[in-house]
């Protein structure tokens, strides 16, 4: 579709773009990325025929750009440049109709086909209602959509866009890019677009081309381009990449230079027994991974609540109920991780452990009335009676992703070991239980000071997690039994 071969372009002899080559296949969406002054716009202007290269050539559909007549080119390629103010205002319909210009000869008149193309294009971009308004009566985003309608009316095979989502609200950014994607899938349109927003580009493009100092340094699929090291070199800013929560696409996050607030250390005194349950409140949010009732999964939170609920607690919507509960307690539902237990929270065991490079605090509440042997649960259905083990592991240190998951495994194994050591029996099978059906776990870390790459059983931190969780769980089980036997 588009073939760019060794183009060198410059203004007044000084090359801005050097020896740039790439190919674009029909039906691809290509994102052009790069810091300011990297030559993105120059490359775009060369492809669109505004600038002519000193060296190299641009071919569209196998034809040299230079041999195409202006109207021929405009039937193959439409361009959506950045917006600039207009002096005289034509109506929206007039502007969109200009998209049919390259389809007209010397004296040919407006045909039904022209009219249909214009109406369709206006409909697709949602500007039909503005038809009789003039451009200056529209907002920047609306104008952008009018120009897009014009480009669609042109019926091009290739569409070039220069930062199309500038001026657009989130809603219209999504709308515009979804629309482009739809056109690509339905009518085989090919799109080459400059993006300022790396994340948007990664979401919508099949391939990303990254320019720096006028040269291509990356030309690959988004997952191969959005890598921390290379993005940091390109943009000269600290970034971190992670997967999109819903899509198999990478996303980039900026890392601000100054971490907010001072160094935070979680102390034993930060744990408080309140009316609501066992509460941990820290000034600086902790990165936490949990299987809690509210705000489970990965996130940053500064409040953690092991909520005391009555034995007959029941609700259809536990997230909604807990949100209302937090609001009634004047606690932020978006900043609080909530677990629930029916055992007496005041029996919670809290253990502190120092080790080389950091420290950790473990808090456990245990109810074993519902003890189960996980290796046997497939054998029979059981009712969920009261009784659950909630384990918190709060670490003063910086954990990697794998360390978080290993910490979770280590803590779980230690809990199972405590069940074994205390000889907790699954009443249905008569075998030693490994936990209860509703156990929850939280691993939270300050992400400051020492860095822990791994937290498996033989690492310093892993061994302390194992020991402390084992001891705390054992103690919690004893307290539970003591109370139950009374």
């Amino acid at each position, binding site marked *: 579709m588009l073939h760019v071969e060794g183009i060198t372009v410059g203004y007044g002899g000084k090359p801005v773009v050097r020896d740039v080559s790439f190919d674009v296949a029909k039906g691809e969406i290509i994102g052009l990325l790069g810091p300011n002054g990297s030559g993105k716009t120059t490359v775009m202007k060369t492809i669109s025929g505004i600038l002519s290269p000193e060296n190299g050539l641009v071919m569209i559909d196998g034809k040299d750009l230079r041999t195409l007549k202006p109207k021929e080119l405009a039937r193959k390629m439409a361009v959506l440049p950045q917006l600039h103010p207009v002096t005289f*205002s034509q109506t929206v319909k007039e502007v969109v109709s200009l998209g049919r210009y390259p389809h007209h000869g010397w004296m040919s008149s407006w045909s039904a086909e022209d009219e249909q193309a214009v109406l369709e294009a206006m409909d697709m971009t949602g500007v039909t209602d503005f038809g009789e308004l003039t451009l200056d009566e529209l907002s920047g985003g609306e104008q952008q959509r009018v120009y897009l309608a014009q480009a669609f009316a042109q019926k091009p095979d290739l569409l070039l866009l220069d930062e199309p989502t500038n001026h657009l609200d989130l809603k219209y950014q999504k709308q515009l890019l979804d629309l482009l994607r739809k056109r690509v899938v339905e009518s085989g349109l090919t799109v080459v677009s400059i993006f300022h927003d790396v994340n948007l580009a990664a979401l919508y493009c099949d391939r990303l081309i990254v320019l720096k100092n006028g040269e291509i340094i990356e030309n690959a699929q988004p997952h191969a381009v959005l890598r921390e090291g290379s993005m940091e070199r390109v943009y000269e800013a600290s970034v971190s990449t992670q997967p999109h929560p819903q899509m198999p696409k990478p996303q980039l996050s900026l890392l601000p230079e100054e971490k907010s607030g001072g160094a935070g250390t979680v102390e034993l005194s930060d744990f408080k027994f309140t009316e609501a349950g066992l509460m941990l409140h820290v000034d600086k949010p902790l990165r936490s991974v949990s299987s809690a009732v509210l705000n489970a999964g990965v996130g940053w939170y500064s409040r953690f609540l092991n909520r005391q609920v009555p034995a007959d607690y029941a609700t259809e919507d536990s997230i909604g109920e807990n949100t209302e509960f937090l609001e009634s307690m004047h606690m932020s539902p978006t900043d609080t991780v909530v677990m629930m237990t029916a055992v007496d929270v005041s029996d919670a065991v809290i253990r502190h452990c120092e080790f080389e490079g950091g420290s950790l605090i473990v808090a456990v509440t245990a109810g074993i009335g519902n003890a189960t042997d996980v290796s046997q649960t497939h054998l029979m259905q059981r009712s969920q009676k009261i009784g659950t083990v909630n384990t918190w592991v709060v670490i003063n240190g910086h954990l990697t992703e794998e360390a978080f998951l290993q910490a979770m495994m280590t803590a779980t194994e230690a809990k199972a070991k405590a069940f074994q050591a205390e000889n907790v029996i699954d009443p249905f099978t008569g075998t030693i239980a490994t936990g209860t059906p509703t156990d929850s776990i939280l691993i939270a870390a300050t992400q400051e000071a020492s860095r822990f790459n791994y937290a498996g059983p033989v690492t310093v931190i892993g061994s302390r997690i194992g020991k402390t969780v084992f001891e705390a769980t054992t103690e919690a089980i004893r307290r539970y039994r003591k109370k139950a036997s009374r």
Partner: protein
Amino acid sequence: MSLGALLVSVWFAVSVGTVKIPFELLWNTSTFPMEAAVLFEIRLPRVLLAGLVGASLAIAGAAFQGLLKNPLADPYTLGVSSGASVGAVAVLFFGISIPFFGMFTLPIVSATAAFLTMLAVLMFSRMIDRSLKMETLILAGIVMTSFLGSVMSLMIALTGEELRSIIGWLLGSVSMRGWPYVWLLLPFFLGGLLVILMNTRELNAMMLGEEKAKHLGVNVNSRKLWLLFSGSVLAGASVAVSGTIGFVGLVVPHMVRRLWGADHRHLVPLSAINGASLLVLCDLVARTIISPTELPIGVITAFIGAPLFGFILWQQRKGGRAHASR
């Protein structure tokens, strides 16, 4: 509607004056021999010339404005009229006559000078700022006008009494020209009008910017040259027959755009018709308001045009800020 207005203006213009022309004359010439002579030998050519000049300047203005995306552009503000004047004065001063062209020497030299001035102003503006901002272009026009004005003054000073009449001509007038001048202007008018009418869709595209026009498939370079050329020819030939009449090209397209929109397919023909009406009426006012003395017609057009120029400038600056803050 515009055509009706033109017909009414023309009738008023030919009938009003020291010699009244009765309506019956139209179908009964023999009863009013004296009036008929006044009508056909004096009034009609004068009115037609005013109409042609008005139409020429208005469409030249419309073309320049669309092409340069500049609402203040017109042959007068861009200095094109001054260029044409210098050309015309030079022809009279040196008594130039190009073989084969005969009396057409004057409009041809004027039009050529106008075109060269246009190119010079554009090149100069582009040197100052590549984006050709509205103000830059008009300032370049003022620089050009001042410079060419001094050249003209010099030529007039050197000739002494002979060209004293040129000064009156410079202020713009369509009086005492007669039919020859109508015939002199007509071919330039028709040629220029035709070229611009053939480029109305291209003008519509260029209103969105030259790059956008190029992307829409307009052969911008050649179309631009044709439009600049025909606009200059219209302005130059008008100056050659009537002297410098300012602001017609500014006022008329502005009014037409307000009433009928910016689409050049309507703007150009409507500007031609209304430009004709305007100048016919201005001429009528010029020769009757303090009769028997005649005012130069340029005085009347400037009286309307200069305030409007100020108004558009004010509006654009305000509009520009409003846009930027959005």
